[in-house]
């Protein structure tokens, strides 16, 4: 590669062929370039129609444009590599392959790539390498060991609607949760997209929501869309008085009650009885796990003998409570 000063106006800033980085706030970049100048030159490739396209350095060039900088040093990927050309590709394709590799590695060895950046990376490389080769070379390209199945998953994410990608970029949908949506048709995926754009939950809870919606719909013999558009769910996700986290919690509780009605009823009944027992903070009573075993568990803490005697007295008092007898019968 050759370093050369070029006019920024010669760069087609709207060509995103090699863009794998996500759009983030570049205020820091703007200030850095304004005050310190460009530290690492961007990498560009000659455009077939003249001028250049960006291979790596989209943020840098954007920051320079916003700083009204007209010229920059850039590393130029040559049109062809006469001596090193890869036998698998034509001369121009060798050049594109090199550009694709650089686009990924330049980012991957500066910072860990986000999932969506990995997705764009494999989609870019897919034109030149199969999934096995990408997995095999992943350490040197992505600075990360990937197996073939993971590369395949990234491919799948790449084929999903852009709104899924946006949710993933925003951290509102995990990769695992997104993959769980792959089996659904376009309309169903859109319904889920609408749902996840209105709630905020962690990875496991996202999966739980998708699983419960799928299973409740199967049990009720309705489509997931019909369930997602049902009154109960709409009332939660369209409630403007709650923030996204609260909506997420309410929706989880609502779905769990639909999915496990008897279990939830038993839990609520136990909680209610527990309240009536008035154990306070001194005693703790646990129900059998999943109400499956027959073992209830009483526990208490004490600091001295006096406290121990008090706890035992309280335990004796509670043991005579008919509510407790009813609970464990």
């Amino acid at each position, binding site marked *: 590669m050759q370093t050369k000063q070029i006019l920024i106006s010669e760069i087609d800033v709207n060509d995103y062929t090699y863009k794998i980085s996500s759009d983030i706030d570049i205020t820091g970049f703007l200030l850095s370039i304004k005050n310190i100048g460009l530290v690492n030159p961007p990498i560009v490739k000659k455009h077939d129609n003249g001028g250049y396209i960006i291979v790596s350095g989209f943020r840098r060039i954007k920051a320079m444009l916003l700083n009204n900088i007209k010229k920059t040093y850039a590393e130029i990927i040559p049109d062809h590599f006469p001596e090193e050309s890869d036998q698998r590709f034509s001369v121009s394709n060798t050049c594109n392959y090199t550009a694709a590799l650089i686009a990924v590695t330049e980012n991957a060895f500066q910072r860990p790539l986000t999932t969506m950046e990995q997705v764009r990376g494999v989609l870019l490389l897919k034109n030149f390498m199969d999934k096995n080769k990408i997995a095999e070379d992943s350490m040197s390209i992505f600075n990360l060991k990937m197996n073939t199945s993971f590369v395949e998953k990234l491919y799948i994410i790449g084929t999903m609607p852009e709104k899924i990608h946006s949710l993933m970029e925003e951290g509102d949908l995990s990769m695992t949760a997104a993959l769980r949506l792959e089996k659904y048709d376009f309309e169903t995926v859109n319904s889920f997209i609408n749902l996840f754009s209105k709630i905020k939950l962690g990875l496991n809870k996202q999966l739980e929501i998708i699983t419960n919606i799928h299973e409740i719909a199967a049990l009720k013999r309705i489509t997931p869309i019909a369930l997602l558009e049902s009154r109960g769910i709409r009332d939660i996700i369209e409630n403007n008085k709650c923030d996204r986290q609260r909506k997420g919690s309410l929706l989880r509780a609502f779905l769990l009650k639909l999915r496990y009605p008897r279990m939830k009823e038993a839990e609520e009944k136990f909680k209610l009885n527990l309240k009536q027992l008035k154990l306070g903070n001194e005693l703790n009573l646990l129900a059998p796990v*999943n109400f499956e075993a027959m073992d209830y568990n009483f526990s208490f803490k004490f600091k001295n003998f006096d406290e121990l005697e008090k706890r035992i007295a309280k335990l004796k008092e509670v043991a005579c409570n008919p509510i407790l007898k009813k609970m464990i019968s």
Partner: protein
Amino acid sequence: MKINKLFIDRDLLSCEEAETLIKKIGIKPESVLDSKEVFDYVNSSDDPVLRGKQTLYITENQGSVIRKCPGTSYYTCCDYTILHTGTFCTMDCSYCILQAYFHPPVLQYFVGREKISVELDKLFAMDKIFRIGTGEFTDSLIWEKITDLPQFLVEKFADQSNSILELKTKTVNIDSLKTIDHNNKTIIAWSLNTPSVIKSEERSTAPLEARLEAAARCESWGYRLAFHFDPVVIYEGCEKEYESVIKSLFTHVSEESILWISIGTFRFMPGLKQTIEKRFPHSSIPYGEFILGLDNKMRYFKPLRIEIYKKIISYIRLYAPDVTLYFCMEDQEVWEKTLGFFPGEEGELGSLLDKSAVKHCNLICKN
């Protein structure tokens, strides 16, 4: 399910039992040095379970011919003895644990009557009652049309007095049993379910009516019978349907011919759920109200189990007040709340079933 690939161990090519089997199947076998080739072939499929059902491997049993039923911790087991004659099944039930139990699941037919005979003789010489079945790792009668294994076993058991053979099936492959002198030492057992469960979850099995008609025929040939409501599946309206199955059962056979009826709600290793979802995408069977049981299997929430058991038991008791009923893998609370007692001591449930076997099949135990 039709067999479309046949493997045989190279050193069994001249085995008479294998030759007969190959002739009846009508597929040229591929001989292999060991099981690896077979397992690789099955594993290379996108659906190894399906391929495993279409691939028969004629081999010898390398392990124990006689095994104790593994049971699981915490829940009460019936101390059954397994006679290991083969693995997997040509029928295709969504809930079948064998899909996840074998790695990979392969239809194996074990040749070697001598080994079976020697091992059984050891049991027959003991002062103990044995309830022995071949239906734990496979269906007992799937090969009935092409081998005389059932006949061999029935005759073998006819000639002793401390053990009964239970042939457990979802087929109606009983014709060859008609003329055998079974000496009342073989019981034919059917797994029963509601017609809607059979239709949606038990591919390639015999319909309920056919199973009950087959049971009636076996009864007319003097065989004792057993029935297994396992897995009981809980769904809307299931109570009425199980009631109807039970009514139909007792219009076909009489209480006196039945050694026992077992009941067990659907339970499964968590990993099976994914297999069911993949292979039976329209099945809602894994979406019941399950909890993780104390044996690390998924089970229906206990109050639901107790409710359905109470109903099924009351329906059975209407027609058969004295028939021996038991649960496969249930706990003290379930036993006490539904049957009113708990065979909690070690071997107690086994003894209960042994008594029924002694009574119905004239077994003799010196102890």
